[in-house]
C-alpha cells in the first residue's frame, strides 16, 4: 500500500510537471528574454551570465514615442468596455433571470451570437461606425467590444442571478423596495463573484482584441497594444528585445487581474453551461 502510494505521488508530479513546463515555458522564456540586453538576445546561449541581464529594454520600450499613448488608449478602451458591459449585462441578466419568456430568448441570442464569425460581423460594424462618424474614436471601439463581450457576460450573470432565491426579492418588494433597490441591495451583493468574473472577462475581450481594432482604429489616436505588437512583428528586422518587452507589458495586467479573479473564474465560465 505504502509503495503504491509513493508511486502514485511520483507519477502525478511527473505528469503535472510535464504539463506545466509546456504551459509556462513560452511565458517564462519571453519574460527572461525581455531582460537580456540587445547584444545577447540574438544568440544561441541559453544563459549569457548576469552581466547581460538588464532593465534597459523596459526603459527603451516605455520611452518609445508612441508607447505611453498606446497604453493609455488600450486602458481607456478596456475600462470603458468593462463598465458598459457590466452595466448592461446586469440589467439584462436580471430581467432575463426573473422573466420567464426573456429567459428563453436570451439563451437563444447568446447561443447564436457565439456562432458569429467575427470576420462577418466586422463588416456591418465598420459600416455603422463609419456612418456614425465613430471610426478611429474610443467610443466606436468601446461599443464594438461591448457587443462582443455582452452575450457571454449576460449568460454568466444570468447563471448567478438564477441562483438567488426568488422569494428573497419578493420579500423585499413587500417591504417596499423598488427594482433598482432590490437589484443593488440584494441581488448584486450575493452575486459579487459573478460581477467580478464578468468585469474580468469584458476587460480581457477588449484588452486582447486585435481584429476589430485593426479595422476601427486608423491612427495613433486609438492604436492599442495588440496593434503595436503586430507592427513590431512585421518589421523588416524584428527587434526581439523590444518586442518581448512590449509583450510582457501586454501580458502582465491580464495575469494580475487573473490572479484576483481566478477563484471565481471557472465557476463563472461554467455558470451558464451547468445543467439545471
Amino acid at each position, binding site marked *: 500500500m505504502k509503495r503504491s502510494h509513493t508511486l502514485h505521488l511520483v507519477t502525478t508530479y511527473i505528469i503535472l510537471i510535464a504539463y506545466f513546463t509546456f504551459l509556462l515555458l513560452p*511565458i517564462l522564456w519571453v519574460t527572461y528574454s525581455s531582460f537580456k540586453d540587445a547584444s545577447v*538576445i540574438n*544568440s*544561441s546561449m541559453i544563459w549569457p551570465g548576469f552581466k547581460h541581464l538588464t532593465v534597459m529594454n523596459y526603459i527603451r520600450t516605455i520611452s518609445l514615442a508612441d508607447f505611453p499613448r498606446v497604453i493609455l488608449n488600450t486602458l481607456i478602451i478596456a475600462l470603458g468596455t468593462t463598465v458598459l458591459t457590466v452595466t448592461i449585462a446586469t440589467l439584462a441578466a436580471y430581467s432575463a433571470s426573473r422573466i420567464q419568456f426573456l429567459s428563453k430568448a436570451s439563451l437563444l441570442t447568446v447561443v447564436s451570437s457565439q456562432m458569429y*464569425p467575427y470576420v*462577418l460581423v466586422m463588416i456591418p460594424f465598420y459600416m455603422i461606425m463609419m456612418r456614425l462618424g465613430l471610426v478611429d474614436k474610443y467610443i466606436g471601439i468601446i461599443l464594438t467590444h461591448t457587443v462582443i463581450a455582452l452575450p457571454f457576460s449576460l449568460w454568466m450573470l444570468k447563471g448567478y442571478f438564477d441562483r438567488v432565491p426568488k422569494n428573497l426579492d419578493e420579500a423585499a418588494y413587500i417591504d417596499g423596495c423598488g427594482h433598482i433597490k432590490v437589484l443593488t441591495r440584494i441581488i448584486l451583493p450575493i452575486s459579487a463573484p459573478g460581477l467580478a468574473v464578468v468585469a474580468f472577462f469584458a476587460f480581457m475581450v477588449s484588452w486582447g482584441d486585435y481584429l476589430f481594432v485593426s479595422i476601427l482604429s486608423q491612427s495613433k489616436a486609438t492604436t492599442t*497594444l495588440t496593434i503595436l505588437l503586430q507592427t513590431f512583428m512585421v518589421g523588416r528586422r524584428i527587434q526581439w528585445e523590444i518586442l518581448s518587452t512590449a509583450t510582457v507589458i501586454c501580458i502582465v495586467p*491580464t495575469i494580475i487581474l487573473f490572479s484576483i479573479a*481566478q477563484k471565481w473564474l471557472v465557476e463563472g465560465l461554467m455558470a451558464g453551461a451547468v445543467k439545471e
Partner: protein
Amino acid sequence: MGLSATRSRILLVVPSLIFVGVLILYPILDGFRLSLTDTSLMMPSVSFVGLRNFISLLHDDIFWLSLGHSSLLTAAAVILQYLLGLGLAIALNQRVPGIGFFRSLAMVTWVIPIAATVVLFKWMATPDYGFFNILLTKLGLASYTRYWFGSITWAMPMIILMHVWRNVPFYAIALLAAMKSIPKELYEAAEVDGAGSLQRFWFITLPAIRYTSVIMIVLHVIFTFNNFDFVYLSTGGGPVRATEVLPTYVYQQSWMYYALGYSASIGVIMMFLLIIFTIASLYYIEGRERS
C-alpha cells in the same frame, strides 16, 4: 405587485434589450443582407445580386482550399485539446500536496491576449535563435532546425500547437469540475464489485463528464473555426496559402479587395456550417442524456 412589477421589470430591461437587440442582431442580419449584394468599398453603387456570390464561391479554388484548412485545423486542434485536457483534468483531480497551486495556475495561458501568444510562439520558433532551434542544436539534432512558421509543412502544425497551448487548461478545468461532482460512493461501490481503475474510468467517469465534454467541444469548434488572430498574426495565411483559413480569406476579400458582399457570403457559409454542427451536437447530447 404581480403585473405592475413585471411591467417595471420590462421597463428596466428596455435599454439593455434595445442595445443587445440592435447591436447583436443587427450586424448579423446586415451580414446576411450584404451577402446577397455586390457591395464593394471601391464602388458607390450597390445592387442586389441574389445568390450570385454563393455561386461564385463554388468555383473559387481558394475558398475550397481555405475551407479544407479550416476544417483540418479545427478537427486537429479540438481532438488534441480534448485528449490533453482530459489528461490534465485527471492529473489535477489527484489528491497530492500542492495540487491547489497547479489548479489555480492552469488557466494562465487562456487569459493572455492571443496577439501576445503569437509573439511567444514566434519567438520560441524564430529561425536563428529561437528556443526550439537552440534546443534541437544542443540535443545534436541541428539538421532538424528550421524556420517553423515559414515552412509549408510546419506552419499549420505550429498554429495547431498555439490553439492547443491556449485552450487545454480550459478543458482541463471544466472537466475537473465535472469530475469533482461525481459522488465518491459510485467509485467505492465499483471497487467493491472488483472494477479496476480503467473500468471505473470508462463506466463511471466518462459518462458523468459527457455533457461537459460536448459543451466544451462545441464551444471550441466554434472558437477555432472562427478564429482569425492566430493565423493572421503568425503566418498571414502563408507561406503560399499553406495556412489560409476562412477567416483570413474573408479578411483579405474585405480589406484588400474591398469585396464586402462576396466576403459576407463566405462568412454566411461559415456560420451556416457552425449552426449545423452545433445543432447536431446538442441534439446528440440531449438524446444521450435522456436515455
